[in-house]
């Protein structure tokens, strides 16, 4: 059996006084797409931030690619091959589109600027515009390809479908599928069950900062009612 790429054990996280994640255990195998499903406020985004080292007040262990990264600052975690696309996308408006694309340090195995522009010609056409002038879908594309420049092994993707038209969501799904086909592992946060079940090999279900269920791709159809119930308000 191969070792997990990401192994999170007994993860607890805190915002000030409030305890928001309660002893999470989760794993992502190399090349696997795993989704975190749950309602708003269930702790999915917090989980990604805790793994990436963006949220600092947490306990437990986060092992990534064989090394404990819990104490590392997020730029060092990034250097080890983890990438985070935040929910609000994090496009920098004081940078041009081109500067956004080329901001992360290029690493071996990462996407060259040339590959980015060939895959998304719109990013070349709009290269000189401020990053914030792109449409929502274009910003999401930019946010995803930007982190590929460093050649990550694991992509933490926070609600990529949020607020986007179905046709754009479809394209983003294609993109994630393609990346996963190239061997990139993805930890996906979603509330859109249709989108998540198309992409993910496995789903963890979040309720109130705890993982309460785990559903494999093959069981999604049979357990559809349970999943819908978990997600409905």
């Amino acid at each position, binding site marked *: 059996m191969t070792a997990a790429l990401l192994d999170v054990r007994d993860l607890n996280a805190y915002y000030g006084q409030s305890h928001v994640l309660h002893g999470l255990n989760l794993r992502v195998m190399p090349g696997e797409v795993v989704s975190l499903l749950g309602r708003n406020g269930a702790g999915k985004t917090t989980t990604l931030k805790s793994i*990436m*080292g*963006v949220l600092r007040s947490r306990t437990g262990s986060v092992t990534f690619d064989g090394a404990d990264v819990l104490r590392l*600052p*997020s*730029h060092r975690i*990034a*250097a080890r091959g983890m*990438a*985070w696309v*935040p929910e609000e996308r*994090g496009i*920098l*408006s*004081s*940078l041009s589109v081109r*500067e956004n694309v*080329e*901001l*992360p*340090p290029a690493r071996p195995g990462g996407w060259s600027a040339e590959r980015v522009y060939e895959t998304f010609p719109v990013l070349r056409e709009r290269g000189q515009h401020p990053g914030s002038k792109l449409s929502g879908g274009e910003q999401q594309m930019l946010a995803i390809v*930007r*982190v590929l420049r*460093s050649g990550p092994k694991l992509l933490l993707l926070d609600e990529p479908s949020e607020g986007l038209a179905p046709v754009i969501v479809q394209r983003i799904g294609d993109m994630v599928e393609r990346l996963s086909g190239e061997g990139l592992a993805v930890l996906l946060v979603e509330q859109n069950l249709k989108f998540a079940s198309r992409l993910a090999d496995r789903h963890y279900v979040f309720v109130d900062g705890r993982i309460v269920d785990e559903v494999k791709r093959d069981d999604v159809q049979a357990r559809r009612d349970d999943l819908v119930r978990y997600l409905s308000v």
Partner: protein
Amino acid sequence: MNTQFLLIQVFNGLVNGAFYALLSLGLAVIFGMLRIVNFMHGALYMLGAFVAFALGQILGLGFWPSLVLAPLLVALLGMALERTLLSRLYGLEPSYNLLLTFGLTLLTQDLVKQVMLSQYAVSSAPYTTPTVLTGVVNLGFVVFPKYRLFVIALALVVCLVTWFVIEKTRVGAIVRASTENPVVTRSLGIDVGKWVTGVFGVGVGLAGLAGVLAAPIYSVEPYMGAELIITTFAVVVIGGMGSILGSIVTGFAVGVLAAVGAAVYPPMANTLVFVLMAVVLLVRPTGLFGLPEGAR
């Protein structure tokens, strides 16, 4: 009043403006990235002048080597202070920082005063203008001291290079990204903390450079930064906090406006800048080039 006299005032204003621009540019760069108001800026300007003086006394170095060396030493000191002291206050209330940098200002001033008194038995010392820049230049319509023209030109070049680096280069993109969203920038693999220290060094280095440039015009004196920094803060308020281009344009413009205003109506000489600041605050509280806090 004739045109000749007004033109000379414009030039004098540009000289003052050169110092305002260099200092407020440094403050703007620092504020943008560190979100702190560096109250120590005036003392570091003075330190630039003093280090140039001391390098001359101890090592016999003249103006040109000191023009490079003194700002570098000030920048190094600034970076050491940022690492050891300022960095401990990030995330706390801004008033802590104000107290720290104000305290460091008093400390620096008195230390320099003690050294000047005990080592050289002076409370202020003149600094020789480099020989190539002594004398005047006849511009045809006006005669003006060579050295002062040099100050205007060098300040302009340094300001424009700084602006270019920040707005147009990869280094600048990293600085702008860290300024706008340090969390995301760090997650993209950039060691924001390292850049913060560097940017602070550059900002205070600019103050040191202004100090060396000021030494031949004013004498080297422990409190030379105290008054200048107050006007500079007014310039920063007029231009808008954190705007790079704004701080340069406002620095020169305020220098000229104050000098011409003082010539037209001498009693206003000391207050004009502050009247201007009050008007700007009434009309545009975020400054001429500043963005509303939420729009950053």
